[in-house]
């Protein structure tokens, strides 16, 4: 903005003078830069041994027959003394399967494609959704509603057209896992649920493939490598599945997008280390990341267990047993919607709406966690989270009595509601067991 105290002609003159100075300064910078370049090249030339000079790289390259476009593309990898041509050459020949193109798979795939993994397979049956894009950073808005695998594969190919990307737009099942896994050197578990984790582990054990396993939820993450050179497998560590109520998912519990980003990126790192045969993979150790306190701790975990059901001495895990194993039953975790209660214990939203219009006496219990209820809730609903319903049944009785007194009737019904329709079924089941026979789920 022009200052009021100065004439336009004065300002124009000053601009002219400054521009002239700028040209001089730029010329000087450019001269100094070229001087610097000449000096550093001169310094590098006499270097041999530990220094990765251009000539030694060249001789290694010809031995490993790295094409010239690869030399240029991965030059910064080749310059790393501890990685070098051998590491890159191994990577280009490697194949990896990423199961899950979500919060963990997204960053992992971006790096694996960029660094030149020869063949990348991607398995996922889901579609890209806007409310996942805060963490599933490989997908763009243009792909909302389309297959995650299609989207992730397109992104990988646009990052690196020299690698092979194979799409599996299907859910991983015991019927297809063996065939898919057998085509890859190592597997990356980037899934979000317990049955898939056991299934992937067991399939890796049967086929003797290393497994890079990552998980993230809320503000925490975990990472380890299973089934690697005699190390433990997932079942060695967790022989029995956790109770269903302990299995929170990002879709229900929330997750800070960058947290799976950190873990997924570390999964790519571990996979790159294994495939290039560089460094010490995180086998027999687990990395635990706490984003809030900014702490990463690496702990020592148990070794391979002789009693392990999957990889132990008396292991009965054959391809046949794997194909017949029911992972949803084993973990009591349904990958589809729960079907716990009978049809007459359910009520549609339309029916419920009619009951409201008719002024029918009822109590609506929202069984979601309190902080979900705070975000949005139905009018006149009572929030009793499923986890505390058992100890708060007296509140249910009191609410029923109050409603009956207000409407001057008896026999008010209980309706339950939640986010996905699973917890509300569990609530109805629990209420029925405690004699609240009128309870139905929305």
């Amino acid at each position, binding site marked *: 903005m022009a200052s009021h105290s100065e004439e336009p002609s004065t300002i124009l003159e000053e601009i002219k003078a400054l521009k002239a100075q700028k040209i001089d300064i730029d010329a000087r910078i450019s001269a100094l830069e070229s001087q610097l370049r000449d000096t550093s090249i001169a310094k590098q030339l006499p270097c041999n041994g530990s220094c990765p000079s251009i000539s030694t790289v060249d001789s290694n390259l010809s031995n490993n027959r790295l094409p010239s476009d690869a030399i240029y593309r991965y030059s910064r990898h080749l310059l790393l003394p501890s990685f070098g041509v051998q590491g890159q050459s191994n990577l280009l020949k490697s194949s990896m399967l990423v199961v899950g193109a979500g919060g963990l798979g997204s960053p992992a795939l971006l790096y694996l494609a960029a660094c030149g993994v020869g063949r990348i397979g991607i398995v996922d049956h889901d579609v890209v959704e806007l409310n996942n894009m805060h963490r599933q950073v490989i997908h763009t808005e243009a792909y909302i509603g389309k297959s995650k695998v299609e989207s992730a594969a397109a992104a990988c190919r646009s990052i690196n057209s020299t690698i092979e990307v194979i799409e599996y737009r299907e859910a991983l099942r015991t019927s297809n896992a063996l065939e898919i896994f057998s085509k890859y050197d190592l597997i990356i578990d980037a899934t979000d649920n317990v049955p898939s984790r056991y299934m992937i582990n067991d399939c890796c054990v049967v086929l003797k493939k290393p497994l890079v396993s990552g998980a993230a*939820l809320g503000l925490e993450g975990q990472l380890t490598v299973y089934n690697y050179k005699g190390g433990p497998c997932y079942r060695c560590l967790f022989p029995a599945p*956790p*109770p269903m109520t302990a299995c929170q998912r990002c879709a229900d519990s929330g997750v800070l997008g960058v947290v799976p980003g950190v873990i997924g990126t570390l999964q790519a790192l571990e996979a790159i280390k294994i495939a290039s045969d560089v460094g010490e993979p995180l086998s027999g150790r687990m990395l635990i990341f706490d984003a809030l306190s900014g702490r990463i701790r690496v702990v020592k975990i148990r070794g391979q267990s002789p009693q392990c059901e999957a990889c132990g001495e008396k292991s009965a895990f054959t391809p046949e047993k794997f194909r017949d194993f029911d992972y949803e039953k084993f973990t009591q975790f349904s990958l589809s919607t729960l079907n716990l209660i009978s049809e007459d214990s359910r009520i549609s939203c339309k029916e419920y709406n009619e009951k409201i219009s008719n002024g029918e006496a009822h109590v609506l219990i929202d069984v979601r966690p309190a902080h979900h209820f705070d975000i949005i809730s139905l009018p006149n609903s009572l929030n009793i989270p499923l986890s505390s319903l058992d100890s708060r049944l007296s509140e249910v009785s009191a609410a029923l009595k109050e409603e009956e007194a207000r409407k001057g009737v008896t026999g008010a019904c209980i309706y339950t509601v939640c986010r996905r329709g699973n917890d509300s079924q569990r609530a109805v089941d629990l209420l029925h067991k405690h004699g609240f026979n009128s309870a139905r789920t929305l």
Partner: protein
Amino acid sequence: MQLTLEFGGGLELLCNSVKVHKVNVDLTDGEENLTMKRLLSWVRTNLIKERPEMFMKGDTVRPGVLVLVNDCDWELSGQLDTTLEEKDVIVFISTLHGG
């Protein structure tokens, strides 16, 4: 005996969302040292405020909980029989599955 107890992976929700607890656990009469078995029952009585079944099953931790004594899996130090020493750090962490 002064110990640092840490809860993670969601287990902190069972103790008022506090992750780190600096605690003092005394030996009872006739006890020569403090074992993990005793510490677990102490934790259950003194720190777990809700849903104890989310922390323990029988006299040990429920499936899916890793116990670390000084950054080392308790399987390597004798599980419930692990004896604790002054200033030990014990971590209880629930395995995560999300992604």
